[in-house]
């Protein structure tokens, strides 16, 4: 287990300069996720039109992995349909748990979180934003 697999430049950059940070004033969908064990707290808000995500933002605070994951995720889901997102989130969970081999191209920048698989205690941090997103689109 090497730290540089986890704290990559890209992850630290997303953590220090998160994309899509903030709240959408009147979202069509939103949800809050909380990781009891470490206190990470994330709010995801979305504008969904015709089953497609037009805008996505997140707010809250937490560790580098949870924040970078949320930053990358909100970039990635814009323009995707809700069905695509559901599929993508499953693939993301598999990737960070080290299941099912190499991630496909559809993971985009999220591949930088692949290293989390070597740090089982951090899987929850990486998945918090995605679980929160799934909750939001379920509503």
């Amino acid at each position, binding site marked *: 287990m090497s730290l540089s697999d986890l*704290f990559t*430049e890209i992850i630290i950059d997303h953590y220090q300069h998160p*994309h899509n940070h903030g709240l959408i004033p009147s979202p069509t969908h939103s949800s809050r996720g909380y990781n009891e064990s470490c206190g990470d707290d994330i709010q995801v808000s979305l504008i969904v039109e015709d089953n497609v995500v037009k805008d996505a933002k997140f707010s809250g605070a*937490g560790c580098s992995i949870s924040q970078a994951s949320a930053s990358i995720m909100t970039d990635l889901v814009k323009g995707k349909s809700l069905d695509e997102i559901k599929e993508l989130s499953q693939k993301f969970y598999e990737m960070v748990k080290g299941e099912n081999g190499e991630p496909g191209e559809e993971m985009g920048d999220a591949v930088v979180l692949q290293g989390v698989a070597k740090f089982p205690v951090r899987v929850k941090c990486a998945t918090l934003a995605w679980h929160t997103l799934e909750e939001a689109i379920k509503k």
Partner: protein
Amino acid sequence: MIRNNIKSDFPIFSYWESRGKPLIYLDSAATTQKPLRVISTLEEYYSQFNANVHRGTYELSQIATDIYEEARSKAAHFINAPQPESIIFTRNATESLNLIAYAWGLNSLKEGDEVILSEMEHHSNLVPWHIIARHTGAVLKFIRMNGDYLLDLESLKKNLTRKTKAVSVVHVSNVLGTINPVKEITALAHEAGAISIVDGAQSAPHIPVDVQDIGCDFYAFSGHKMCGPTGIGALYGRYDILEKMEPFLGGGEMINEVFPTTSNYAKPPYTFAAGTPNISGAIGLKAAIDYLEEIGLKDIEEYEMSLGDYAAHRLAEVEGIHIFRPHTTGTGVISFTIDNVHPHDISTILDSEGIAIRAGHHCAQPLMRKLQVQSTARASFYLYNDKSDVEALASALEKSVSIFSPRRINVVK
């Protein structure tokens, strides 16, 4: 004096050393490591003396009962309780505190009665009272904490009224290392006609405790935080109060006579001992107390405090660190945050260097809010730690700072 080679009493260190991954264990506030003495006592008990207690009519059971009861006497002596019968064995401090809340609180509190806690309580001295307050209509009040992480006794005095029925306070904070003046708090509680409850989970392992000197009515502690096994804890209760209390759990062992629809109960401590107890745990706890007493609690306290002070000074040199520890008193617990490095990330970086610390809210969410942080990192030292551990910690923290040092903007498109 703490022996130089004390680490060798604890097999876990040589195990990891031999695997080429030396363990620097700084999470003793969560649970402590176990000396070989305690580990072998468990093996000895199971391979030589195992039988159920208090009900056998044969010699082996009598032996098991005798050593189990010796453990109770030992625990009583350890905190200077007036008699062994005032010690109830539980699973841990949490169960001890719940026992008070349910067996005393549920039956003694009425609507409008008040229970005073403090702003630095562990969830185990909060949530049971939330439950009991909901059942009884009792009201919870809080002793405030000042800027130096000490309890403000003026706010206790202001809160104490004729409605106050109990004051329940943590002796040593698991986050701040603050040693609270429980003797003074108890005296104030008694003056107002309230009982005094002390959460000793973080004091029994680290400082000499004398419940008669403190004067408290209840004192709760956990075996696993003081070199003993998990699953054993104790509650000291003033005997005349225990005698008036209803049982906590019902079943075997705690009864006198049972009829189809009613029963009457055994005397304390057995009133609170339903079911087969954790016999090996109690015996392991006795071995742990023997071990700590041989070293001497006074020496452990002094050693830890000076190591804690040393660590606080050394860590203060780390760039961007904020340490939450009182200036005047403090045990070997050091909670901190570092600007721009999240506690969870600190913990991962330290883990890669073989250093175990805790990151999170430490089961003290209200205190985290009061400190205006989401979480902290916490290093907690015990008798098997030394200055070299502090040095390793400090340099790993410096590494954390450099990994998260501010970057050029726009590495990512």
